[in-house]
């Protein structure tokens, strides 16, 4: 599949945003969030910025951006529509919560609001994942790991963003619960564990056997597997199908990119976290490096997610 930059941007940025939202919302809901209203609001608004940029990027991908609102219509059947509905629902709730939240010791109503918000944000990510994972035309995406990976990446990048925000806020919140929660070793260790889990899942996804089925014989129904080969395509030059669905990535390239993704997504952030744990004074630069690296990494990962996926329609052209 052609890795359209707009979609790569959209899924990675909004993924980070929703992950950040989910984490901060859970923190507030269970009362583990910082007393510092500012940090909470900053997290909510950073999430809003990330998801909004993502959404704008996805709108830019549309052939008819001005009609984007129509995408809200078919939530009963379309994951894309559901995603749009949920994404939009998150926005007012986010603003409302940002306005009403006082501190980590907010009232029950606010905490319930945050719980609902966490659910909404998580559901949005799941919807995004389901858009791709539900396509029967792309075998790679039918892999069971595709949806969890989406969620894990959202949480991982969101978590790193949260660490970054907390690290920025740290000097101001001396006594803050943030130190107790987000800044705490436990929290960072959990994040690290998440990263390790994601990495394992991702490696498994990459290593799964990627057979070429259905082959041309199956796509045309003309013979036993392997007996059919294209003689002439319907067109000698490239067309939409080949551009969009015929994207082929050289194995050599793929391997190099996977290595880059692994390092930037897993190795570097783990290092940064380790540094943050060992040298709290270096927490801010470590958080900056870890987050930036992971964002680059998730971007490469997502690019590969599309670029490496083969659409069945390619079989007609082989």
């Amino acid at each position, binding site marked *: 599949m052609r890795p359209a930059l707009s979609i790569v941007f959209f899924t990675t940025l909004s993924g980070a945003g929703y992950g950040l939202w989910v984490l901060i919302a859970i923190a507030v809901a269970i009362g583990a969030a910082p007393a510092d209203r500012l940090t909470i609001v900053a997290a909510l608004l950073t999430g809003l910025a990330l998801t909004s940029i993502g959404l704008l990027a996805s709108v830019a991908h549309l052939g008819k951006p001005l009609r984007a609102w129509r995408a809200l219509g078919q939530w009963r059947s379309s994951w894309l529509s559901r995603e749009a509905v949920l994404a939009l629902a998150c926005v007012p709730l986010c603003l409302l919560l940002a306005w009403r939240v006082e501190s980590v010791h907010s009232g029950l109503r606010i905490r319930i609001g945050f719980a609902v918000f966490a659910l909404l944000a998580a559901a949005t990510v799941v919807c995004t994942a389901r858009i791709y994972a539900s396509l029967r035309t792309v075998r790679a995406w039918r892999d069971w790991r595709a949806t969890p990976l989406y969620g894990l990446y959202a949480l991982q990048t969101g978590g790193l963003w949260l660490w970054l925000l907390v690290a920025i806020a740290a000097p101001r919140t001396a006594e803050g619960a943030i130190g107790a929660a987000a800044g705490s070793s436990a929290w960072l260790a959990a994040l690290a564990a998440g990263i390790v889990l994601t990495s394992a899942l991702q490696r498994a996804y990459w290593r799964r056997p990627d057979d070429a089925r259905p082959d041309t014989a199956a796509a045309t129904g003309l013979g036993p597997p392997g007996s059919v080969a294209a*003689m002439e395509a*319907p*067109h*000698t*030059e490239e*067309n939409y199908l080949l551009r969009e669905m015929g994207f082929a990535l050289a194995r050599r390239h793929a391997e190099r990119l996977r290595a880059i993704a692994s390092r930037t997504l897993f190795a570097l952030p783990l290092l940064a976290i380790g540094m943050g744990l060992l040298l709290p004074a270096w927490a801010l630069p470590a958080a900056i490096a870890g987050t930036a690296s992971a964002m680059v990494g998730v971007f490469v990962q997502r690019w590969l997610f599309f670029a490496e996926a083969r659409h069945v329609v390619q079989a007609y052209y082989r």
Partner: protein
Amino acid sequence: MPPCDRMAEPPRRRFRYHAGAVRMRTTDQPRMPHAKLDLHQPTGDTVTTTTCYMCACRCGIRVHLKDGKVRYIDGNPSHPVNRGVICAKGSAGIKQHYSPARLSKPLLRVGERGAGEFREIEWDEALALATEWLGDVRRRNPDELAFFTGRDQSQALTGWWAQQFGTVNYAAHGGFCSVNMAAAGLYTVGGSFWEFGEPDWDLTRYLMLWGVAEDHDSNPIKLGLGKLKARGAKIVAINPVRTGYGAIADEWIPIQPGTDGLLAGALIHELLRTDRIDLDYLVRYTNAHHLVIRAPGAADDGLLARDAQGRAICAVREDAELRLAPADLPGIAPLVVGEYMLEDGRIGVPAFQLLTERYLSDDYAPDRVAARCGVEAATIRRLARELAEAAFDQAIELDQPWTDAYGRTHATMTGRPVAMHAMRGISAHANGFHTCRALHVLQMLLGAIDTPGSFRYQPPFPKPVPPPNRPGRDRKDNGALDAGPLGFVHGPQDLLVDAAGAPRRIDKAFSWEHPFAAHGMLQSVIRNAWAGDPYRIDTLLLFMANMGWNSAMNVGQTRAMLTDRDPATGRYRIPHVIYVDAYASETVELADLVLPDTTYLERHDCISLLDRPISDADAAADAIRRPVIAPDRDVRPFQDVLLDLGARLGLPGMTREDGTPRYPGGFAQYMVEHERAPGIGLLAGWRGVDGELHGVGAPNPGQLERYAEHGCYWHHAVPPSARYYKMANRDYLQWARGLGFLGSEAPITLELYSERLQRFRLAARGHGAVQPPDGERARVERYFDPLPFWYGADGEAVEADAEAYPLSAITQRPMFMYHAWGSQNAWLRQIAARNVLYLNARTATEHGVADGDWIWLASPLARIRVQARFHGGTAPGTLWTWNAIGKRRGAWRLDGDAPESREGFLLNHLIDELAPAREDGRRLANADPVTGQAAWFDLRVRIERDPAPREPGHRVEAIAPLRRPS
């Protein structure tokens, strides 16, 4: 512009839709989400019928206009040629009509030839200039005009015009197209494959396709194949390549190019060996029983023995008595083998015996030919058996009484349901004439010519063998030739040679080099005119022939010849080139004066029975094309321009006595008013003052309106009793004579044995008044064999060293492109904008070529860099590509980096128009020695590897540059 059939499109709700083929109700549509969906939108504002000209098949079309633009073109369901279907090219006509490559104004060259620098001029200036050049030529020597036309369909006018001008140097493109097919057929059975005959699509049970990719009858063949498929009839494709029609054939015979004559010979061998032949058919309809004089050395050796009245004779046995009888007597029992004493005491042998002697020889035994043909002997034997089974064991008896030419009635019509069709895979070889004759002989042996289920003639064929019209030779007082410049040579006396036996025509057609060149030799004109061999000309008038590119053999040298100046005078060696095209083809830039034609939707054309008719086996038919839309450019229909030029030149037939133009109304007026012979004009339909006559009748001023009312075609059914055995069917012969197709009702005898060919052989042996020059005697002797035979590259045509150039390279027509025309078409070029070279994996391996590699193909002339692709459906040793996709950079108003020129290619750069030098040092045309047919498919090449095989890019490198004649 004639009125359109405005009401042809039914107004809304004139037809009420009811459950039919598709059962559905249109009323209960639930909530329509698709608010703007209008299920009843009319196709356009008006619809006009006319005739397609995206290729030479000439289907009936309906052109729908909307807001004054062409909105849709579809097949006319009532049209006999295509019955409503339309091919890819036909549907893409819109894009051709609106092509940006259309020329828009007459052009006069201002720069060097070939530089493409022109000044737009007015028509008056253009016509005055042409009149000046041509006027000078006509006063000096009309033969200094060479008027050659390409894929046009207006030879009834252009040939006549050349005749009135008085030049012998006229031809259409048939010489490089398929004259082998036409000549072999017309000199053998009075009809031919090509578009003059067809398999009996409704009844045949076994169809053999010999070297057919697309043919001119594009849609009729496809409709026919569809019928065969629906019936489950067997189709066998004999072709080095399995694509298109071959793809749906039941059996593919991957023959080695140029060896079909051997395969046909082996099939004949088998049929004779197993005695599976129709002897009754042979003695009834062919000259199998005619006695051939066996008198070596005599002036009439090998001619048919004749009685005092000049009738061929045969031996018959009556009451155990042997005697001689006129061979055409009905009711006799002729003998087909033996030696018989003639009246004069000499020996006569039945033609059939000579045939069997040739074909029963080991030379044609399946085991002998198998390796050369690339077809296993067992397969050959099986094919022969299958042919015989289809012809004899599955014979058909049609419940249709008929009367033969002798007045005997027959209750039924016996059919041999095995049919053949052949085209350029046979004819585009230097042995094509004899190979094609062998195919006709094969059909005769099976009794399978014009019987139910077999090959069938399309009226006006059959004609006498050969047709009576001979090529014009002498100029009358008014300067016109005594006959049309093309025709059929009946004997050496008809050749266009001077006293010394040298060619009189610029292309050397009808000379001792190519005596039966019935369509001329367009491929030789430029070379000969440039070399001054046999003489220099002044003006080359080319119409609709892309001789600067895909239609030329040896493209590089051809372009050089057109732009070459005589060092002595500084003038171009071909002083004037006038070119008529509708589009910015590669040839435009090589002309001095360019006359822009209209598109096919902007003019009148005539698809005449005098030209290449659109008849089918069951009906005679002709058609017109009419303007559907007015030109938006300053262009004129070339037919109008020719008549205008003729009037300006004062040519006979084009001016009245007072000097005013005879046809001020242009070609439309000519179509209606011109009479070739009394009562016979270009159109056969609705003749006579009130339009009640068909075939022959006075001109009808309302004729075009009648055509317009009838979908622009005339379709005149052959009576049921006259549909088969046309060569000897009284009802048919009478019907055809009544329509002016035949001069008499005499039956037409098919020529198993060709006395006509023997006459040339005798001349070569020193008999008769007109004899070949000494240097040509042996060649004429060899190739004018009265019986078909096979010769390979040991002939003189292409004798390139087999080791140096071990591979055959051929082309095929893509079904969706028409020669050069298609690539300017926005839709068609989306299907193919480049071509590759296909070859078998085995061949590739032998030459170290991997799939997708860029390689060099080299002939002695040039080498081209092309991309190779593996194809299992290609015979080993053969390379092929699609024809005419490659374009010259910048032509056809395509961008400079268009794939057609960047990666697409032509084989034409490699094909020499001259055969290798003979022993005497002369180089004759690379053509069939009998007919002059260009031997495109005799090309031999070798593969040279490129150091960077993965780097794309087509290139041409000349190996042999043009050398001026000394």
